[in-house]
């Protein structure tokens, strides 16, 4: 297999660029929180490298700070990250033909943003080598995340919330959601999922998202069967 296509890598990098300030800001928050919770610098780096999933890292850091038992922290991380199993299933057919080592590397870099941008790109374009665009999106996110968690724990500095830079993240999902609602079934999926997720926003462990997505998929199937 040849090396990934540079023009597709650049395209991915260009698409992910507006997300960089938001991910940097979130990375700083996680770094600062890790420092305050008593993580050493190597441990904060270890958490970012091994887990590499912001919401679950922040939850784990808070639980460690509060002296939660080992199992509670592990279960929390697993439940918060369970949504990525949906992404893994959804994107798997696009990665099927890559070598095992590549698939493991692509899986390690899987995030909400890498999944969302890549699956949308694959569906709108005839992509020959799916690694290139994905790496263009996922690797910059990884590098910014690692750098900013380190800066956060070392410098202890955050970007003020009022600047609103993290708002770029939902805007990207919104930009991808609109063209994804292309028929009755997908519109039903989005409407039900969004409503359930909003209603379940107060649930612990990001369960609102899982419940929303699950109900949304069910709604799509029902809408398809009724039609």
């Amino acid at each position, binding site marked *: 297999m040849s090396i990934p296509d540079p023009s597709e890598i650049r395209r991915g990098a260009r698409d992910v660029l507006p997300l960089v300030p938001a991910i940097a800001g979130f990375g700083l928050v996680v770094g600062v929180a890790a420092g305050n919770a008593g993580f050493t610098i190597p441990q904060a780096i270890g958490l970012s490298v*091994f887990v590499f999933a912001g919401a679950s890292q922040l939850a784990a850091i808070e639980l460690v700070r509060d002296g939660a038992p080992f199992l509670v922290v592990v279960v929390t991380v697993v439940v918060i990250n369970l949504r990525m199993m949906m992404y893994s299933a959804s994107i798997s057919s696009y990665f099927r033909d890559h070598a095992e080592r590549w698939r493991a590397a692509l899986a390690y870099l899987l995030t909400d943003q890498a999944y969302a941008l890549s*699956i949308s790109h694959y569906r709108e374009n005839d992509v020959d080598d799916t690694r290139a665009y994905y790496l263009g999106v996922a690797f910059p996110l990884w590098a910014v995340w690692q750098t900013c968690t380190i800066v956060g724990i070392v410098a202890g500095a955050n970007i003020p919330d009022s600047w609103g830079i993290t708002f770029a993240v939902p805007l990207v999902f919104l930009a991808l959601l609109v063209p994804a609602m292309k028929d009755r079934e997908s519109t039903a999926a989005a409407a039900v999922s969004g409503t359930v997720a909003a209603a379940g926003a107060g649930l612990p462990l990001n369960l609102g998202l899982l419940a929303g997505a699950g109900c949304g998929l069910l709604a799509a199937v029902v809408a398809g069967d009724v039609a």
Partner: protein
Amino acid sequence: MNTWLWGLILVAGVLTFSIRYSFIYLVAKTGDLPPRAKRVLAYVPPAVFAALVIPEFVAYDAGLHVAPDQLTAGVVAAVVAYRTENLFATILSGMLALWTLRFLL
């Protein structure tokens, strides 16, 4: 504390990687998923994107919470997304709308 925390980081890391790798690993071993599963998976993007977006605007957590500036900026961005289907235009319009509402008005 040190060994405990390192153990925690490693276990959490291995489990998180297993979640990410799960189907990407399996599908290459077993071949394609059954047609019914593929049909359902085709709706993961709209379902997940909506579940990630909507709670940023409206959320129920012991009472209904609406973020008026984010909601307005989101509506502006949604219109731009619908008209242009352009990622940059959508993000730019949403951010400009948010900053206008927060800092200028």
